[in-house]
Protein backbone atom coordinates (compact mmCIF):
# COMPACT_ATOMS: atom_id res chain seq x y z
CA UNK A 1 0.00 0.00 0.00
CA UNK A 2 1.26 3.42 -0.89
CA UNK A 3 -1.61 5.35 0.61
CA UNK A 4 -1.65 8.81 1.88
CA UNK A 5 0.97 9.51 4.42
CA UNK A 6 -0.35 12.74 5.95
CA UNK A 7 2.19 14.79 4.02
CA UNK A 8 0.59 13.95 0.67
CA UNK A 9 -1.75 16.72 -0.40
CA UNK A 10 -5.21 16.06 -1.80
CA UNK A 11 -4.20 17.24 -5.22
CA UNK A 12 -1.29 14.81 -5.37
CA UNK A 13 -3.62 11.95 -4.46
CA UNK A 14 -5.99 13.14 -7.15
CA UNK A 15 -3.23 13.21 -9.75
CA UNK A 16 -2.16 9.71 -8.80
CA UNK A 17 -5.78 8.57 -8.99
CA UNK A 18 -6.07 10.01 -12.46
CA UNK A 19 -2.91 8.13 -13.37
CA UNK A 20 -4.58 4.88 -12.37
CA UNK A 21 -3.47 4.37 -8.76
CA UNK A 22 -6.45 2.86 -6.88
CA UNK A 23 -4.75 3.28 -3.49
CA UNK A 24 -4.53 7.01 -4.05
CA UNK A 25 -8.24 7.16 -4.79
CA UNK A 26 -8.98 5.14 -1.68
CA UNK A 27 -6.80 7.56 0.26
CA UNK A 28 -8.92 10.48 -0.90
CA UNK A 29 -12.18 8.75 0.02
CA UNK A 30 -10.78 7.88 3.45
CA UNK A 31 -9.57 11.40 4.01
CA UNK A 32 -13.01 12.87 3.37
CA UNK A 33 -15.00 10.08 5.00
CA UNK A 34 -15.55 11.96 8.26
CA UNK A 35 -15.86 15.60 7.19
CA UNK A 36 -17.89 15.08 4.04
CA UNK A 37 -20.23 12.59 5.65
CA UNK A 38 -20.92 14.93 8.58
CA UNK A 39 -21.47 17.78 6.16
CA UNK A 40 -23.95 15.75 4.12
CA UNK A 41 -25.85 14.59 7.20
CA UNK A 42 -26.29 18.22 8.22
CA UNK A 43 -27.31 19.25 4.71
CA UNK A 44 -29.59 16.35 3.93
CA UNK A 45 -30.85 15.84 7.46
CA UNK A 46 -30.48 12.07 7.40
CA UNK A 47 -27.62 9.56 7.58
CA UNK A 48 -28.96 7.28 4.85
CA UNK A 49 -29.35 10.08 2.38
CA UNK A 50 -25.94 11.35 3.42
CA UNK A 51 -24.39 7.99 2.62
CA UNK A 52 -25.98 7.94 -0.84
CA UNK A 53 -24.82 11.48 -1.48
CA UNK A 54 -21.33 10.65 -0.26
CA UNK A 55 -21.11 7.80 -2.76
CA UNK A 56 -22.52 9.94 -5.54
CA UNK A 57 -20.02 12.66 -4.75
CA UNK A 58 -17.10 10.29 -5.19
CA UNK A 59 -18.65 8.72 -8.27
CA UNK A 60 -18.65 12.19 -9.70
CA UNK A 61 -15.08 12.87 -8.56
CA UNK A 62 -13.99 9.61 -10.17
CA UNK A 63 -15.83 10.30 -13.39
CA UNK A 64 -14.12 13.68 -13.61
CA UNK A 65 -10.60 12.69 -12.58
CA UNK A 66 -9.13 13.32 -15.99
CA UNK A 67 -10.83 16.67 -16.27
CA UNK A 68 -9.40 18.12 -13.09
CA UNK A 69 -7.32 21.21 -13.70
CA UNK A 70 -3.70 20.76 -12.75
CA UNK A 71 -3.66 23.95 -10.66
CA UNK A 72 -7.08 23.63 -9.02
CA UNK A 73 -7.69 22.70 -5.36
CA UNK A 74 -9.56 19.56 -4.37
CA UNK A 75 -11.33 20.55 -1.17
CA UNK A 76 -13.58 23.32 -2.55
CA UNK A 77 -14.27 21.14 -5.57
CA UNK A 78 -15.46 18.13 -3.61
CA UNK A 79 -17.69 20.34 -1.45
CA UNK A 80 -19.06 21.99 -4.57
CA UNK A 81 -20.06 18.63 -5.98
CA UNK A 82 -21.58 17.62 -2.64
CA UNK A 83 -23.52 20.88 -2.31
CA UNK A 84 -24.94 20.54 -5.81
CA UNK A 85 -25.91 16.91 -5.29
CA UNK A 86 -27.55 17.74 -1.96
CA UNK A 87 -29.49 20.60 -3.56
CA UNK A 88 -30.64 18.31 -6.36
CA UNK A 89 -31.68 15.68 -3.91
CA UNK A 90 -33.63 18.18 -1.81
CA UNK A 91 -35.34 19.44 -4.94
CA UNK A 92 -36.36 15.93 -5.87
CA UNK A 93 -37.88 15.42 -2.46
CA UNK A 94 -39.62 18.77 -2.87
CA UNK A 95 -40.88 19.03 0.68
CA UNK A 96 -38.35 18.45 3.39
CA UNK A 97 -39.71 16.62 6.39
CA UNK A 98 -40.99 18.84 9.16
CA UNK A 99 -38.30 18.99 11.78
CA UNK A 100 -39.97 21.25 14.26
CA UNK A 101 -39.48 24.43 12.30
CA UNK A 102 -43.13 25.40 12.55
CA UNK A 103 -42.33 28.65 14.27
CA UNK A 104 -40.22 30.23 11.60
CA UNK A 105 -42.33 28.74 8.86
CA UNK A 106 -45.16 30.87 10.16
CA UNK A 107 -42.99 33.86 9.45
CA UNK A 108 -42.84 32.75 5.88
CA UNK A 109 -39.81 31.87 3.88
CA UNK A 110 -37.25 34.42 2.86
CA UNK A 111 -34.14 34.57 0.81
CA UNK A 112 -30.81 33.82 2.38
CA UNK A 113 -29.67 37.38 1.90
CA UNK A 114 -32.45 39.45 3.41
CA UNK A 115 -32.56 37.83 6.83
CA UNK A 116 -32.54 39.64 10.16
CA UNK A 117 -29.50 41.56 11.26
CA UNK A 118 -27.23 39.63 13.58
CA UNK A 119 -26.33 42.47 15.91
CA UNK A 120 -29.91 43.69 16.21
CA UNK A 121 -31.08 40.16 16.97
CA UNK A 122 -28.47 39.66 19.64
CA UNK A 123 -29.45 43.00 21.13
CA UNK A 124 -33.15 42.17 21.19
CA UNK A 125 -32.80 38.81 22.89
CA UNK A 126 -33.92 39.02 26.47
CA UNK A 127 -32.87 35.63 27.67
CA UNK A 128 -30.32 33.15 26.53
CA UNK A 129 -32.70 30.71 24.91
CA UNK A 130 -30.38 27.78 25.21
CA UNK A 131 -29.50 28.16 28.82
CA UNK A 132 -32.94 27.10 29.91
CA UNK A 133 -32.92 23.87 27.92
CA UNK A 134 -31.94 20.32 28.65
CA UNK A 135 -29.08 19.04 26.52
CA UNK A 136 -31.24 16.78 24.36
CA UNK A 137 -33.80 19.46 23.73
CA UNK A 138 -31.07 21.94 23.00
CA UNK A 139 -29.52 19.68 20.37
CA UNK A 140 -32.91 19.12 18.74
CA UNK A 141 -33.75 22.84 18.75
CA UNK A 142 -30.43 23.83 17.22
CA UNK A 143 -30.75 21.18 14.57
CA UNK A 144 -34.28 22.31 13.78
CA UNK A 145 -33.28 25.97 13.72
CA UNK A 146 -30.40 25.38 11.31
CA UNK A 147 -32.51 22.99 9.31
CA UNK A 148 -35.21 25.58 8.97
CA UNK A 149 -32.94 28.14 7.35
CA UNK A 150 -33.32 28.94 3.68
CA UNK A 151 -31.23 26.42 1.74
CA UNK A 152 -28.37 28.76 0.91
CA UNK A 153 -28.12 30.20 4.38
CA UNK A 154 -28.09 26.69 5.81
CA UNK A 155 -25.31 25.61 3.47
CA UNK A 156 -23.29 28.68 4.32
CA UNK A 157 -23.60 28.18 8.08
CA UNK A 158 -22.74 24.50 7.84
CA UNK A 159 -19.72 25.15 5.65
CA UNK A 160 -18.59 28.05 7.82
CA UNK A 161 -19.16 26.75 11.28
CA UNK A 162 -19.17 22.96 11.09
CA UNK A 163 -16.75 22.44 8.23
CA UNK A 164 -14.51 25.38 9.03
CA UNK A 165 -14.26 26.58 5.44
CA UNK A 166 -12.98 30.09 4.89
CA UNK A 167 -15.20 32.80 3.41
CA UNK A 168 -13.42 32.68 0.08
CA UNK A 169 -13.75 28.90 -0.08
CA UNK A 170 -17.47 29.12 0.62
CA UNK A 171 -17.72 31.73 -2.11
CA UNK A 172 -16.05 29.29 -4.50
CA UNK A 173 -18.19 26.35 -3.43
CA UNK A 174 -21.47 28.20 -3.72
CA UNK A 175 -20.46 30.41 -6.68
CA UNK A 176 -21.40 33.71 -5.08
CA UNK A 177 -19.34 36.81 -4.25
CA UNK A 178 -17.52 37.07 -0.94
CA UNK A 179 -19.82 39.83 0.34
CA UNK A 180 -22.86 37.66 -0.28
CA UNK A 181 -21.28 34.82 1.66
CA UNK A 182 -20.64 37.06 4.65
CA UNK A 183 -24.14 38.51 4.72
CA UNK A 184 -25.66 35.05 4.24
CA UNK A 185 -23.79 33.74 7.25
CA UNK A 186 -24.55 36.76 9.40
CA UNK A 187 -28.23 36.70 8.52
CA UNK A 188 -28.47 32.97 8.94
CA UNK A 189 -26.89 33.11 12.39
CA UNK A 190 -29.29 35.87 13.38
CA UNK A 191 -32.17 33.76 12.16
CA UNK A 192 -31.00 30.75 14.13
CA UNK A 193 -30.86 32.92 17.23
CA UNK A 194 -34.33 34.29 16.54
CA UNK A 195 -35.80 30.86 15.92
CA UNK A 196 -34.32 29.53 19.12
CA UNK A 197 -35.68 32.44 21.11
CA UNK A 198 -39.14 32.12 19.64
CA UNK A 199 -39.30 28.37 19.98
CA UNK A 200 -38.47 28.76 23.64
CA UNK A 201 -41.12 31.40 24.13
CA UNK A 202 -43.73 29.17 22.47
CA UNK A 203 -42.80 26.12 24.48
CA UNK A 204 -45.77 24.73 26.37
CA UNK A 205 -45.51 25.58 30.06
CA UNK A 206 -45.21 22.54 32.28
Amino acid at each position, binding site marked *: MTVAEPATCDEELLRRSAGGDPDAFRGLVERYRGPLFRFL*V*RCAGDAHRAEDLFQETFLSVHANL*LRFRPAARFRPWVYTIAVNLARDEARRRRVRPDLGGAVSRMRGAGSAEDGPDLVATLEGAEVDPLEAMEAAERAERVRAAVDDLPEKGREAVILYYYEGLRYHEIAEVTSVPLGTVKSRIHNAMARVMETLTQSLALRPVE
Partner: protein
Amino acid sequence: MEFDCDRLADILLDLATGRLGSADRRAAETHLATCPSCAERVRRCHDVIAGLDAWEVPAPPEDLVERTLAAVEGAGVSPGERRRRAPSPMGIRPPTVARVRWGWRTGLRAAAAAAIVFACALQLSGDFVPRIQERIEDAQLELCAQQLSRLGVALHAYRRDHGEVPASLEDLMAALLKEGYVTDPGIFRCPAHADGGEDGMSYPPYTSYMDLLGMGRASGEASSGGGRATAPGHLGDCPVLGDRPGNHAGHMQVLYLSGVVETIELDALHVSMAAWTYPRTRGGG
Protein backbone atom coordinates in the same frame (compact mmCIF):
# COMPACT_ATOMS: atom_id res chain seq x y z
CA MET B 1 -7.70 52.24 11.55
CA GLU B 2 -10.09 53.27 14.29
CA PHE B 3 -11.60 50.21 15.96
CA ASP B 4 -15.19 51.16 16.66
CA CYS B 5 -18.49 49.38 17.34
CA ASP B 6 -19.23 49.00 13.60
CA ARG B 7 -15.91 47.32 13.01
CA LEU B 8 -16.63 44.97 15.88
CA ALA B 9 -20.08 44.12 14.50
CA ASP B 10 -18.36 43.28 11.25
CA ILE B 11 -16.01 40.74 12.75
CA LEU B 12 -18.31 39.53 15.52
CA LEU B 13 -18.75 36.02 14.14
CA ASP B 14 -15.10 35.55 13.39
CA LEU B 15 -14.26 36.71 16.89
CA ALA B 16 -16.80 34.38 18.51
CA THR B 17 -15.64 31.41 16.45
CA GLY B 18 -11.99 32.09 17.13
CA ARG B 19 -11.03 32.85 13.56
CA LEU B 20 -9.39 36.21 14.04
CA GLY B 21 -5.69 36.66 13.65
CA SER B 22 -3.89 37.71 16.83
CA ALA B 23 -3.53 41.39 15.83
CA ASP B 24 -7.25 41.75 15.06
CA ARG B 25 -8.12 39.85 18.20
CA ARG B 26 -6.04 42.12 20.38
CA ALA B 27 -7.63 45.19 18.81
CA ALA B 28 -11.08 43.72 19.43
CA GLU B 29 -10.25 42.89 23.02
CA THR B 30 -9.02 46.41 23.62
CA HIS B 31 -12.32 47.77 22.34
CA LEU B 32 -14.36 45.29 24.36
CA ALA B 33 -12.60 46.31 27.55
CA THR B 34 -14.03 49.80 27.16
CA CYS B 35 -17.38 49.09 25.51
CA PRO B 36 -19.93 47.20 27.61
CA SER B 37 -22.55 47.01 24.86
CA CYS B 38 -20.15 45.31 22.45
CA ALA B 39 -19.01 43.01 25.23
CA GLU B 40 -22.62 41.98 25.78
CA ARG B 41 -23.09 41.30 22.05
CA VAL B 42 -20.04 39.08 22.04
CA ARG B 43 -21.30 37.19 25.07
CA ARG B 44 -24.65 36.50 23.39
CA CYS B 45 -22.95 35.56 20.19
CA HIS B 46 -20.85 33.05 22.11
CA ASP B 47 -24.05 31.56 23.47
CA VAL B 48 -25.45 30.98 20.01
CA ILE B 49 -22.17 29.61 18.75
CA ALA B 50 -21.93 27.29 21.72
CA GLY B 51 -25.46 26.19 20.95
CA LEU B 52 -24.40 25.09 17.48
CA ASP B 53 -22.09 22.57 19.08
CA ALA B 54 -25.10 20.84 20.54
CA TRP B 55 -25.98 19.53 17.09
CA GLU B 56 -24.13 16.28 16.88
CA VAL B 57 -24.26 13.95 13.93
CA PRO B 58 -23.70 10.19 13.78
CA ALA B 59 -20.28 8.88 12.84
CA PRO B 60 -19.96 7.66 9.28
CA PRO B 61 -20.71 3.95 8.81
CA GLU B 62 -17.68 1.69 9.26
CA ASP B 63 -17.87 0.43 5.71
CA LEU B 64 -18.55 3.77 4.01
CA VAL B 65 -15.21 3.78 2.21
CA GLU B 66 -15.54 0.17 1.03
CA ARG B 67 -19.06 0.73 -0.18
CA THR B 68 -18.10 3.91 -1.98
CA LEU B 69 -15.19 2.20 -3.73
CA ALA B 70 -17.49 -0.69 -4.63
CA ALA B 71 -19.97 1.78 -6.08
CA VAL B 72 -17.24 3.38 -8.16
CA GLU B 73 -16.10 -0.04 -9.31
CA GLY B 74 -19.68 -1.10 -9.95
CA ALA B 75 -20.34 1.94 -12.06
CA GLY B 76 -17.86 0.28 -14.37
CA VAL B 77 -16.57 3.44 -15.90
CA SER B 78 -13.10 4.76 -16.17
CA PRO B 79 -12.38 8.35 -15.24
CA GLY B 80 -13.60 10.85 -17.71
CA GLU B 81 -16.02 8.39 -19.14
CA ARG B 82 -19.72 8.63 -19.33
CA ARG B 83 -21.73 7.69 -16.29
CA ARG B 84 -25.38 7.04 -16.96
CA ARG B 85 -26.99 7.39 -13.62
CA ALA B 86 -29.66 9.79 -12.49
CA PRO B 87 -29.13 12.57 -11.61
CA SER B 88 -26.45 14.01 -13.78
CA PRO B 89 -23.21 14.51 -11.85
CA MET B 90 -22.88 17.83 -10.08
CA GLY B 91 -26.43 18.58 -11.00
CA ILE B 92 -25.39 20.06 -14.28
CA ARG B 93 -26.57 19.30 -17.75
CA PRO B 94 -24.06 17.89 -20.17
CA PRO B 95 -22.75 20.57 -22.47
CA THR B 96 -24.13 20.85 -25.93
CA VAL B 97 -21.65 19.69 -28.48
CA ALA B 98 -21.90 22.21 -31.21
CA ARG B 99 -19.34 20.89 -33.65
CA VAL B 100 -17.41 17.69 -33.49
CA ARG B 101 -14.66 16.33 -35.69
CA TRP B 102 -13.01 19.35 -37.00
CA GLY B 103 -11.23 18.38 -40.19
CA TRP B 104 -8.44 19.67 -42.33
CA ARG B 105 -10.79 20.95 -44.99
CA THR B 106 -12.43 23.40 -42.64
CA GLY B 107 -9.05 25.07 -42.42
CA LEU B 108 -9.94 26.82 -45.64
CA ARG B 109 -13.01 28.21 -43.97
CA ALA B 110 -10.81 29.41 -41.15
CA ALA B 111 -8.66 31.32 -43.59
CA ALA B 112 -11.76 32.83 -45.12
CA ALA B 113 -12.99 33.77 -41.67
CA ALA B 114 -9.68 35.43 -40.91
CA ALA B 115 -10.15 37.48 -44.04
CA ILE B 116 -13.54 38.51 -42.74
CA VAL B 117 -11.93 39.72 -39.52
CA PHE B 118 -9.64 41.92 -41.53
CA ALA B 119 -12.44 43.25 -43.71
CA CYS B 120 -14.58 43.92 -40.68
CA ALA B 121 -11.88 45.85 -38.94
CA LEU B 122 -12.17 48.43 -41.67
CA GLN B 123 -15.81 49.26 -41.02
CA LEU B 124 -16.48 49.11 -37.30
CA SER B 125 -19.49 51.33 -37.03
CA GLY B 126 -23.21 51.53 -36.27
CA ASP B 127 -25.41 48.44 -36.49
CA PHE B 128 -22.62 46.40 -37.93
CA VAL B 129 -20.76 46.22 -34.68
CA PRO B 130 -22.67 43.39 -32.97
CA ARG B 131 -22.68 41.29 -36.13
CA ILE B 132 -19.04 42.00 -36.74
CA GLN B 133 -18.24 41.03 -33.18
CA GLU B 134 -20.02 37.76 -33.77
CA ARG B 135 -18.06 37.13 -36.94
CA ILE B 136 -14.80 37.90 -35.22
CA GLU B 137 -15.68 35.42 -32.51
CA ASP B 138 -16.57 32.78 -35.10
CA ALA B 139 -13.32 33.37 -36.92
CA GLN B 140 -11.38 33.06 -33.68
CA LEU B 141 -13.09 29.75 -32.91
CA GLU B 142 -12.18 28.43 -36.33
CA LEU B 143 -8.57 29.49 -36.07
CA CYS B 144 -8.34 28.04 -32.60
CA ALA B 145 -9.77 24.70 -33.79
CA GLN B 146 -7.30 24.69 -36.65
CA GLN B 147 -4.39 25.26 -34.27
CA LEU B 148 -5.52 22.52 -31.90
CA SER B 149 -6.01 20.13 -34.78
CA ARG B 150 -2.50 20.81 -36.08
CA LEU B 151 -1.12 20.35 -32.58
CA GLY B 152 -2.89 16.99 -32.49
CA VAL B 153 -1.21 15.92 -35.71
CA ALA B 154 2.17 17.17 -34.47
CA LEU B 155 1.73 15.31 -31.19
CA HIS B 156 0.92 12.07 -32.98
CA ALA B 157 3.90 12.47 -35.29
CA TYR B 158 6.13 13.15 -32.28
CA ARG B 159 4.86 10.08 -30.44
CA ARG B 160 5.30 7.94 -33.54
CA ASP B 161 8.89 9.08 -33.95
CA HIS B 162 9.92 9.09 -30.30
CA GLY B 163 7.62 6.53 -28.71
CA GLU B 164 6.75 8.94 -25.90
CA VAL B 165 6.00 12.57 -25.25
CA PRO B 166 7.55 15.11 -22.85
CA ALA B 167 6.22 15.28 -19.32
CA SER B 168 5.04 18.85 -19.37
CA LEU B 169 3.36 21.14 -21.83
CA GLU B 170 6.31 23.53 -21.73
CA ASP B 171 8.66 20.70 -22.70
CA LEU B 172 6.25 19.58 -25.38
CA MET B 173 6.05 23.07 -26.85
CA ALA B 174 9.82 23.38 -26.85
CA ALA B 175 10.34 19.95 -28.42
CA LEU B 176 7.74 20.39 -31.15
CA LEU B 177 9.22 23.73 -32.14
CA LYS B 178 12.84 22.68 -31.89
CA GLU B 179 12.37 19.59 -34.00
CA GLY B 180 10.18 21.32 -36.55
CA TYR B 181 6.88 19.52 -35.90
CA VAL B 182 5.37 22.98 -35.73
CA THR B 183 6.93 26.20 -36.95
CA ASP B 184 4.90 29.00 -35.42
CA PRO B 185 5.14 29.43 -31.64
CA GLY B 186 1.82 31.29 -31.86
CA ILE B 187 0.08 27.96 -32.39
CA PHE B 188 0.17 27.38 -28.62
CA ARG B 189 -1.89 30.49 -27.98
CA CYS B 190 -5.62 30.71 -28.57
CA PRO B 191 -6.25 33.57 -31.04
CA ALA B 192 -9.08 34.78 -28.80
CA HIS B 193 -6.81 34.97 -25.77
CA ALA B 194 -3.38 35.60 -27.08
CA ASP B 195 -1.84 36.70 -23.79
CA GLY B 196 -2.59 33.42 -21.99
CA GLY B 197 -4.00 32.98 -18.48
CA GLU B 198 -2.45 33.63 -15.07
CA ASP B 199 0.33 31.22 -15.92
CA GLY B 200 0.71 32.58 -19.43
CA MET B 201 -0.90 29.59 -21.14
CA SER B 202 -4.06 29.91 -23.11
CA TYR B 203 -4.08 26.14 -23.76
CA PRO B 204 -3.42 24.61 -20.35
CA PRO B 205 -2.90 20.83 -20.39
CA TYR B 206 -5.31 18.40 -18.80
CA THR B 207 -4.31 16.26 -15.85
CA SER B 208 -4.55 13.26 -18.14
CA TYR B 209 -1.85 14.67 -20.36
CA MET B 210 0.54 15.02 -17.48
CA ASP B 211 -0.27 11.71 -15.85
CA LEU B 212 -0.92 9.41 -18.76
CA LEU B 213 1.33 10.78 -21.44
CA GLY B 214 3.92 12.46 -19.32
CA MET B 215 4.52 9.41 -17.18
CA GLY B 216 4.95 7.33 -20.28
CA ARG B 217 2.00 5.08 -19.54
CA ALA B 218 0.27 5.93 -22.76
CA SER B 219 2.90 4.81 -25.18
CA GLY B 220 0.87 1.70 -25.98
CA GLU B 221 -2.72 1.07 -26.79
CA ALA B 222 -5.94 1.43 -24.88
CA SER B 223 -5.54 -1.99 -23.27
CA SER B 224 -2.55 -0.86 -21.21
CA GLY B 225 -4.86 0.13 -18.39
CA GLY B 226 -5.97 -3.45 -17.69
CA GLY B 227 -6.71 -4.32 -14.09
CA ARG B 228 -6.30 -0.88 -12.59
CA ALA B 229 -9.48 0.37 -11.08
CA THR B 230 -9.11 3.90 -12.31
CA ALA B 231 -7.21 3.52 -15.54
CA PRO B 232 -9.10 4.85 -18.52
CA GLY B 233 -10.31 2.32 -21.01
CA HIS B 234 -10.08 4.45 -24.09
CA LEU B 235 -7.06 6.63 -24.26
CA GLY B 236 -8.32 8.30 -27.40
CA ASP B 237 -11.02 9.86 -25.21
CA CYS B 238 -8.40 11.57 -23.07
CA PRO B 239 -8.39 15.34 -23.39
CA VAL B 240 -4.86 16.58 -24.05
CA LEU B 241 -5.14 20.32 -24.01
CA GLY B 242 -7.69 22.97 -24.77
CA ASP B 243 -9.07 26.42 -24.21
CA ARG B 244 -9.45 28.08 -20.90
CA PRO B 245 -13.17 28.60 -20.42
CA GLY B 246 -12.69 32.35 -20.75
CA ASN B 247 -10.95 32.28 -24.12
CA HIS B 248 -14.11 32.40 -26.23
CA ALA B 249 -17.47 33.81 -25.25
CA GLY B 250 -19.65 30.82 -24.41
CA HIS B 251 -17.41 28.18 -26.00
CA MET B 252 -14.29 26.22 -25.42
CA GLN B 253 -12.40 23.79 -27.61
CA VAL B 254 -10.59 20.65 -26.62
CA LEU B 255 -8.06 18.45 -28.37
CA TYR B 256 -8.38 14.73 -27.62
CA LEU B 257 -5.63 12.19 -27.89
CA SER B 258 -7.52 10.67 -30.81
CA GLY B 259 -6.84 13.92 -32.67
CA VAL B 260 -10.46 15.01 -32.58
CA VAL B 261 -11.05 18.67 -31.76
CA GLU B 262 -14.34 19.45 -30.15
CA THR B 263 -16.20 22.72 -29.73
CA ILE B 264 -18.26 22.79 -26.56
CA GLU B 265 -20.96 25.28 -25.72
CA LEU B 266 -20.69 26.41 -22.12
CA ASP B 267 -23.66 27.23 -19.96
CA ALA B 268 -23.39 29.29 -16.79
CA LEU B 269 -23.07 26.29 -14.52
CA HIS B 270 -20.23 24.88 -16.53
CA VAL B 271 -18.46 28.16 -16.28
CA SER B 272 -18.76 28.05 -12.51
CA MET B 273 -17.49 24.46 -12.31
CA ALA B 274 -14.72 25.33 -14.71
CA ALA B 275 -12.60 26.58 -11.84
CA TRP B 276 -11.88 22.93 -11.07
CA THR B 277 -12.59 20.83 -14.10
CA TYR B 278 -12.82 21.13 -17.80
CA PRO B 279 -16.39 20.48 -18.89
CA ARG B 280 -17.14 16.92 -19.76
CA THR B 281 -17.72 16.38 -23.43
CA ARG B 282 -18.17 13.70 -26.04
CA GLY B 283 -21.61 12.78 -24.78
CA GLY B 284 -20.38 12.41 -21.21
CA GLY B 285 -23.26 12.81 -18.76
